[in-house]
């Protein structure tokens, strides 16, 4: 039943993606309520899935790679719904839906929904650490999305080929302001997640700690470079894309390794 909810949610995001692609290709892109409603519906179904999983497990559903990816997709949608309208980035829905759809489709197709062999007792610090880190990833994902939007628009301005989507994108300074705020939000949440990891009372694998700090340092370097004005907005936008791709790869690596070692 819970996987069916997730399947329906993925279909909602898929419909939003297909519609956005069709209208972009037709050259008549205009942000509408449809995409936003699809994201809302997809988010509601994701929430239903996570809620049912959480009740079944008796804890936050972050016990295997499948749940981690679904939680990540849910966090991306959550941050979009919270932040998108605030920054008047309604168009972000058209860019966010593909990211969420991709993560969820991979989670559904890959054979990674393996029940954890070791059932740990509920640990508030551990759950806080895991969930807040995932929400931080959601903010980084939105910074990635805003970075893509920035680069798309910058490219069109440089090449003088203005597609219909150009007229719907927010001005470059507005997009950059959103990127900066999302980076700071994600960084603050990630720092809290990282710090709380030391209070879980669990043994900390060295590789996991190293990777987590590497991601933290990457984002810290971007923010520092920006603070000192060493990094131009275009570079920051590009680095947001690189950093999130690296962070997701690291997340996958760490969780996959942890899952395999627990199975052994």
């Amino acid at each position, binding site marked *: 039943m819970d996987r069916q909810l997730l399947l329906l949610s993925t279909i909602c995001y898929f419909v939003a993606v297909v519609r956005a692609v069709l209208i972009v290709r037709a050259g008549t892109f205009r942000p509408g309520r449809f995409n936003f409603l699809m994201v809302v519906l997809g988010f509601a179904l994701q929430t239903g899935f996570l809620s049912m999983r959480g009740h079944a497990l008796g804890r936050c559903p972050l016990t295997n790679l499948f749940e981690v990816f679904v939680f990540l997709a849910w966090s991306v949608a959550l941050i979009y719904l919270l932040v998108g309208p605030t920054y008047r980035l309604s168009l972000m829905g058209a860019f966010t839906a593909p990211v969420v759809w991709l993560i969820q489709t991979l989670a559904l197709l890959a054979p990674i929904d393996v029940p954890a062999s070791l059932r740990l007792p509920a640990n508030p610090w551990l759950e806080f650490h895991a969930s807040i880190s995932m929400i931080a990833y959601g903010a980084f994902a939105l910074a990635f999305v805003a970075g893509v939007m920035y680069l798309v628009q910058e490219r069109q301005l440089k090449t003088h080929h203005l597609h219909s989507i150009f007229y719907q994108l927010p*001005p470059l300074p507005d997009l950059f302001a959103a990127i900066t705020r999302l980076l700071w939000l994600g960084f603050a949440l990630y720092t809290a997640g990282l710090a709380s990891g030391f209070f879980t009372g669990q043994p900390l694998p060295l590789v996991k700690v190293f990777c987590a700090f590497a991601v933290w340092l990457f984002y810290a370097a971007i923010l520092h470079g920006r603070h000192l004005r060493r990094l131009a907005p275009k570079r920051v936008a590009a680095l947001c894309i690189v950093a999130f791709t690296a962070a997701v790869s690291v997340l996958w690596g760490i969780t996959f390794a942890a899952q395999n070692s627990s199975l052994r």
Partner: protein
Amino acid sequence: MNVFCVGISHHTAEVEVRERYAAASRTEVFMRERCGCAEALVLATCNRVEVYAAAAQAIATDEIARSLGGNESSSPAEADEFYRYEGVECARHLFRVAAGLDSMVVGETEILGQTKKAYAQAREAGTAGPSLHRLFQRAFRVAKQVRSRTDITRGAVSVGSVAVELAVKIFGDLANRKALVLGAGETSERTARALAAHGVTDLRVSNRSFERGQDLANRVGGRAVPFAEWKEQFRDIDILISSTSAGEPLLTAAMLSPISSERADRPLFIIDIAVPRDIAPEVNELEGVYLYDIDSLQTIAAQSLAQRRHQIAAGEEIIAEHVSAFAEFLEGGKTGRRHAEMMEREPLSEAPLRPSES
């Protein structure tokens, strides 16, 4: 009561003829008294002079044309340039006019504001009664739907407005932005004016002839800068409009590169209107520099216009729906009655104008 429209527009009459009728500026009261219409409204813009009226008896087009221009200014040949639409076709014509489909620049929004003003004047003069009220209120709603449901108004269609649109994309808010106008050509003046109208407050003008530069600066509300000092402005300015008659590039990537690195966070938008070009094309390769020459700007304007023309069919579909509802109303059908009830509920005052319409 028969509703009809008689008029001339850029489709049927030369500008000299339109000017003469527009200058005569007959009022609604005059038209009603002279022609014996029960209701009358005059819509006079630079591209059209039209009378919308309601009358119990038939009134000849010639009679309206003579009254509109004054007997002395109309000739039999000019009377042939007048068109006439009655009943449903009058509604279709007005809906097309208000939605900007009949405009010289398809999709322009100024016409809706002008139509609303004309309607307000007629109401104030007491010459717009229930027939014109229903017709015009419906027209305003049709225009709004066409604008919101199609891309008929999307994109700028003149060099000046394309420049403003791009500047807004690059800088967001144009308030407190600084622009330098190099050369004192007509297009650069229009572009400078368009930027000033959108918030650019610091306009500097530099021309080989300081006096001409000073003249232009006075006209656009800026200040003149000696031509020898124009390069020094680059540390400050955000926008450069160049239109000198120099035979070779005034600005190259090698010249701009050292300054460009100092402006890490501040993009530079260069509008090169000159032919031959004042700015070397490779300047566009520099980070944070956006260079548009006259061809690029005109291409974007032409693309926008073509896009608007593609949207005409979609606009016509919306209009057709409203025309059939209006036809039913005129015939007293079910939809028409619903329409009439809806119209009765609508306030008689006109909707407020948007800034773009006023």
